[in-house]
């Protein structure tokens, strides 16, 4: 048994524990124990991974293991991690851990809520450790379906509509994705589902014909892109996030949307490099639209969650934008952006949930002067906002800087123009964040009901502080993690760059 599988085993044990648990306290106990174990495991993995790399182990994937699963169809349960997956696992563990505390006082049906929550996290962890397309796809879908019930039962606002829309759009994406996976598998000779085998043409796999790639690449990219909020398939995201309960928004925006970017990079582009070179420009234009359009949309929203959801569309668009630039610096930036956006957006959603839990409104026109009433939450909100607009010293700056430096270094007016267009999102982000902070935190409180509200409780403070430490840690000392990510993105970018194909803009 490979130790990466523990990432899936722990949620399984948690599910069992939750099933047996009686009463809220036992449920909380199971969740805290499980999520702490996951976090500890993720930290251990990171440290051990860095030590392995420092010791000179340059294999593309570490801790690989493979077991026959459905032998006649060449489906195996294969695990392995590189720098990207380690970063993502760490991110997921942090979000699950803090998410548990953010939903500490959730009512009703606490047990059921955590059951679905744990199932979702199992899907996420499984996705990041898998290197077999089938297992990856299975975990991907496991992560999607609990959203329906999590939003539908425990959400707020137009929850039924939002839950159904989100589920159907994401499942529509995975329908394309499944077709793309078949295309890749049979296009490469039907010998192996293992991503490494297909990418390096080992284990009986042959290169996929460019003509076939051009059919399956768009399907796969759109399939994952739906989850990565690719314009025009992003419309589930604002509704879904706005209706979801706090911890679910955190997990969804923080981790689940990263599955999209990760999948686009690891499956669509890595396995079909020729098509990526040939057709990447179409998606590059779409992602540039996502980046700018998301930011502009955020400016005109009046609901706190909608603002953040559109901001997520913009930032996740930046992830896809960066990987499509197909060079080392931009790709590292993309993964940094995934990490950074995951952490700060989780922080944002956690704070919004806490504010909403007290004021029972998320309409910015009804909120003002919160800084005096709940200083702790307000200060944290300012920090989250500054991270979001890319203040140096916090995570957002590191990621966006790397992305724009990387993408600007691509030759050709096409890339330069798109980079400049995407750069404008930084300014627009500053506009809506600063306006928002000014509006709801400062000024005088006009609603006397709000004056009696209390500041954060211990569990809320704990969740928020953990996230702020991570955001600041990433912003102040990015080198150790960016080096680690670089070892992961390097081989993939090498494969993509060495692909000979017709790129109209090169």
């Amino acid at each position, binding site marked *: 048994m490979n130790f990466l599988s523990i990432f899936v085993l722990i949620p399984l044990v948690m599910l069992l524990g939750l099933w047996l648990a009686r009463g809220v306290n036992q449920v909380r106990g199971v969740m805290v124990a499980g999520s702490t174990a996951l976090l500890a495991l993720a930290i251990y993995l990171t440290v051990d991974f860095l030590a392995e790399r420092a010791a000179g182990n340059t294999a593309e994937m570490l801790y690989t293991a493979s077991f*026959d*699963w*459905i*032998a*006649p*169809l060449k*489906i195996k349960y294969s695990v392995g991690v590189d720098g990207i997956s380690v970063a993502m696992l760490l991110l997921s563990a942090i979000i699950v851990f803090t998410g548990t505390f953010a939903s500490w006082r959730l009512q009703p049906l606490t047990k059921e809520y955590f059951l679905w929550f744990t199932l979702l996290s199992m899907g996420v962890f499984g996705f990041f450790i898998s290197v077999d397309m*089938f297992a990856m796809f*299975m*975990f991907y*879908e*496991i992560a999607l*379906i609990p959203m*329906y*019930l999590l939003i*539908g*039962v425990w959400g707020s606002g137009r*929850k*039924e509509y939002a839950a*159904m829309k989100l*589920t*159907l759009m994401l*499942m*529509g994406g995975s*329908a*394309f994705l*499944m*077709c793309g996976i*078949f*295309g890749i*598998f*049979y296009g490469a000779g*039907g010998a192996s589902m293992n991503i490494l085998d297909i990418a390096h043409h080992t284990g009986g796999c042959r290169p996929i014909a460019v003509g076939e790639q051009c059919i399956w690449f768009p399907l796969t990219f759109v399939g994952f892109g739906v989850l990565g909020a690719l314009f025009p398939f992003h419309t589930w995201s604002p509704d879904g996030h706005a209706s979801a309960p706090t911890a679910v928004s955190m997990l969804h925006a923080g981790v689940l949307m990263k599955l999209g970017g990760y999948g686009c990079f690891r499956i669509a582009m890595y396995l079909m490099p020729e098509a990526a070179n040939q057709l990447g420009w179409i998606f590059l234009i779409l992602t540039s639209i996502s980046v700018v359009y998301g930011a502009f949309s955020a400016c005109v929203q009046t609901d706190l969650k909608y603002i953040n959801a559109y901001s997520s569309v913009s930032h996740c668009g930046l992830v896809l934008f960066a990987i499509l630039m197909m060079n080392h610096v931009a790709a590292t930036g993309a993964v940094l952006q995934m990490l950074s956006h995951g952490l700060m957006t989780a922080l944002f959603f956690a704070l919004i949930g806490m504010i909403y839990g007290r004021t029972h409104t998320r309409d910015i026109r009804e909120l003002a002067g919160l800084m005096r009433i709940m200083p702790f939450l307000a200060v944290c909100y300012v920090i989250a906002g500054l991270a979001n607009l890319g203040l140096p010293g916090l995570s957002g700056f590191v990621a966006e800087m790397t992305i724009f430096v990387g993408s600007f270094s691509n030759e050709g007016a096409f890339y330069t123009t798109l980079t400049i267009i995407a750069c404008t999102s930084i300014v627009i982000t500053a506009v809506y964040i600063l306006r928002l902070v000014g509006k709801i935190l400062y000024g005088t409180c006009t609603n006397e009901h709000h004056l009696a509200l209390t500041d954060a409780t211990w569990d809320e403070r704990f969740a928020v502080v953990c996230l702020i430490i991570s955001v600041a840690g990433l912003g102040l000392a990015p080198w150790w993690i960016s080096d680690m990510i670089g070892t992961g993105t390097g081989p993939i970018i090498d494969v993509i760059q060495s692909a000979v194909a017709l790129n109209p803009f090169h």
Partner: protein
Amino acid sequence: MDYSQFLTMHAELSLLVVITILFIADLFMCGDKKCGKGVYNTCLPVVLLTLHTVLNLCPCCGQCCSESVSAFGGMYQHTAMMTVMKSVLNVGTIIVFLMAHKWLSREENLIKQGEFYLLTLFTLFGMYLMISSGHFLVFFIGLETASIPLAALVAFDKQRYESAEAGAKFILIALFSSGLLLYGISMIYGATGTLYFDEVMQHWGTNGNANIAVLGLLLFITGMGFKISLVPFHLWTADTYEGAPTVVTGYLSVISKGAAAFTLLTVLIKVFACCAFVATWDWAFFWIIVASITIANLFAVRQKNLKRFMAFSAISQAGYLILGVMDGTAQGMTALVFYLLVYMVANLGAFAVISVVEQSSGKVGMDDYNGLYHTNPKLAFLMTLCLFSLAGIPPFAGFFSKFFVFMAAFNAGHPWLVLIALINTVISLYYYLLIVKAMYIQPNETPIACFKSDGYTRVALALCTLGVVVLGICGVAYNHIDALSYGLDTVARCCQGCGQ
């Protein structure tokens, strides 16, 4: 005559023994405790059938005989895959018997309890014959034995208007489709001069008259299409499913459909293994699948009665099932049988819930299920698992079976068909989620009261849940089925002019 030939038919013969035992037992027992005779309960048929399944399956596991055995001059043909298929049907029947307990112990049904088992097992016997036939007449006799008692089962609640009407509809449609099938068989006879599968196959390419044979093939597909309830031959399905007793609906939607689908595949592989025919049947099935999946999905969205809803869901599931027939590959056969197995546990699980709710509250409307989770959480949760499995959501078995059947069709060279089917799974997810939404989210002033289900239903539900959870994750089932499957790519095509 060599009487040892009968031994090759051991599955059928032992089923006859089971039927005889039940028949005799019925004389001495009755379900009513007050009548003074022994109590006739669900245990007896369930135990006998379980014994039958185990005995059947054991020799097969030991030898792994993949070569075909034939007896009575080729009238009866048997492969190991067929044993697997028969066992699958047996397991389904056992679950149906367990589900039926509560319904059968109602006062008006007590005296008919024995009839129910006998009729059901006779249809099962017919399906056995149909599956192992090597001659069109045996096939036809099997088919009729499988459908006529089924009509009696559909009309089992004969005092109920809908049940009687459903029975009448079913028998008329069954006869009509048998007529078409017979006509098709006569065409094939006209073209080849024989009804033995092997001989028919050898005639193609030498003296077969292609046009008339293609007509025969199409009529054959039409006849089977009625039995499997594929669009455009599905019009009887919704009414019959709604009117029939819920348990019988479950049996119809899984066992009867499954046996017909498997037979369709084996007969096509056996008889129509010629390139020209393969092209024809691929073309026909392409459109039948697209129509079945799409139309049934669109109709299912609008249904308010859960049994009608399951009828349309079953039609679309049949469409997915037939994806395994495309091109007649071995991979397709594995995928089909596996799909059937998974579909069986998931669908019967859903029907078990519907049935038990109907028995305790008399409600089958979708709105009646509003708020079920708050009164009967376990039942609602099991229903959710089964629906997720039907919709193809991992980690439940339905995801795996859908993946495999799509993979088989993709490998057979039909990527666009797979894409259409995949897009349809999203529609199907929508309507399955409607039920989940009703149970978990919708508020209800008068929800179905909390009730305790009986022990037999619990066993049935436990079996179904176990299947839904385990069958997919453990790849063992698929691997075993795959070892026994065969198709046009593994069995030599016996026609000239194909060049293969």
